[in-house]
């Protein structure tokens, strides 16, 4: 592994992103617009916005980085650049970490912007520290990135990659506890929910929004989020084959 190669890859990925200003604007503006919309929709029920605003803010980066990474990585696989990279003296992890750093940095900007809107004009209040929401959100971005990287191996076209979002992200959003508390779900749904990483990512955000408790469950939430990220990165690395048929 080489910091030089990792840094070069991160710079390359960010340069590619910068070359596509429309995507950058969409990635930065859409979460803000959606949050404003959410606040307006629940104007008559401010308590709802206050309770789901914090967690939602922290889940946006997961969704957008999942999508961006799966498409970027798919392009890298089909355009032949990945195979070309495999002939260079680099480690697969250099590529993966380069991606992770680039998208984490971008997510930090995204989260900062949406936080300024949420905690400023929208007057979103969280009981826990705001910085913890931001940190968790960036962590979720990296989780989304690692999942996107892994599943890009199972898509051969961009159409397929886009469909992985409703297939793999929406069920996690529905089951994580954001819309309905997990205790109120049918038991079989709770079982599924318990094995989905977003459930833990959401729970950590919900706990910070509510100001705790930061007990064993919170530690587990953070541990599962980090662990799932590492697992998907490892699985992603396994799909980056140096030799192909």
């Amino acid at each position: 592994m080489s910091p030089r190669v990792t840094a070069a890859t991160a710079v390359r990925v960010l340069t590619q992103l910068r070359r596509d200003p429309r995507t950058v604007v969409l990635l930065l503006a859409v979460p803000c617009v959606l949050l404003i919309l959410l606040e307006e929709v629940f104007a008559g029920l401010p308590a709802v916005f206050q309770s789901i605003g914090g967690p939602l803010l922290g889940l946006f980066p997961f969704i957008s980085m999942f999508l961006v990474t799966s498409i970027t990585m798919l392009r890298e696989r089909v355009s032949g650049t990945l195979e070309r990279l495999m002939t260079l003296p680099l480690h697969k992890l250099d590529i993966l970490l380069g991606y992770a750093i680039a998208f984490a940095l971008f997510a930090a900007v995204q989260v900062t912007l949406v936080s300024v809107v949420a905690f400023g004009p929208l007057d979103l209040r969280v009981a826990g520290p705001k910085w913890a929401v931001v940190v968790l959100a960036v962590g979720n971005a990296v989780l989304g990135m690692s999942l996107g990287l892994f599943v890009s191996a199972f898509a051969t076209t961009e159409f397929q990659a886009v469909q992985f979002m409703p297939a793999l992200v929406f069920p996690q959003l529905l089951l994580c506890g954001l819309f309905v508390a997990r205790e109120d779900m049918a038991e079989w749904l709770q079982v599924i929910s318990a094995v989905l990483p977003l459930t833990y990512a959401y729970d950590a955000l919900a706990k910070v929004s509510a100001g705790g408790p930061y007990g064993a469950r919170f530690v587990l939430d953070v541990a599962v989020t980090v662990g799932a990220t590492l697992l998907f990165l490892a699985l992603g690395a396994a799909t980056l084959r140096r030799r192909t048929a």
Partner: protein
Amino acid sequence: MSEPAIRVESLRVVRGGKVALDGISVEVAPGIVTGLLGPSGSGKSTLMRAAVGVQRIDSGRITVLGQAAGSLALRSRVGYRTQAPSVYADLTVRENVRYFARVLGVSDGGVGEAIDTVGLGEEAGRVANRLSGGQLARVALAMALLGEPEVLVLDEPTVGLDPVLRRDLWDTFHALAGRGATLLVSSHVMDEADRCDELLLLREGRIVATGSPDELRRRTGAGDLDEAFLRVIDEGEA
């Protein structure tokens, strides 16, 4: 005779249920330009991919500079240009070459040099998706030339280029060989065969002839290499 730069022993590759390389054995001599000629689908790209270690092989082996093809130590000593230019479409020429240079640990001076060698100095700031096919092909070539590799594997590097540029590139290839580099260059255009020092003729996954262009003409009594290739095939089938 010196050690071959590339040694292929009973290499067999099956791709998509079809035999791409049928247990071929061949050697590529160091310090010269060897042309890999054959019709499209004959296995040229498969052999080249095997030489850089990205082709899954079914049996046999291939070594480069005495080491297993694709091993870590080799990857900074072997330059490769894929058949379809593997270039980031949303990066400029310079950004593309610079990224590979950083990975290889080549200085920024080497970046400018590689871009100049392929005649893209004026286009260095242009985004790749705005380039013509021929220009893209040259970006990929510049990336292969980085770091003065000892072995260059170039898959159809001159396709679609104008004749002047093609001549310049072939001069570059020979200049590199003059400095000791080994070049394996594929083409399906027979008129390029005459620019090579040695030839490997590949057809349907088998080596049908090897030798210098002159040798091949003499041996077959043919006037041009196209004709020589045909006679070799006829002899093989007779």
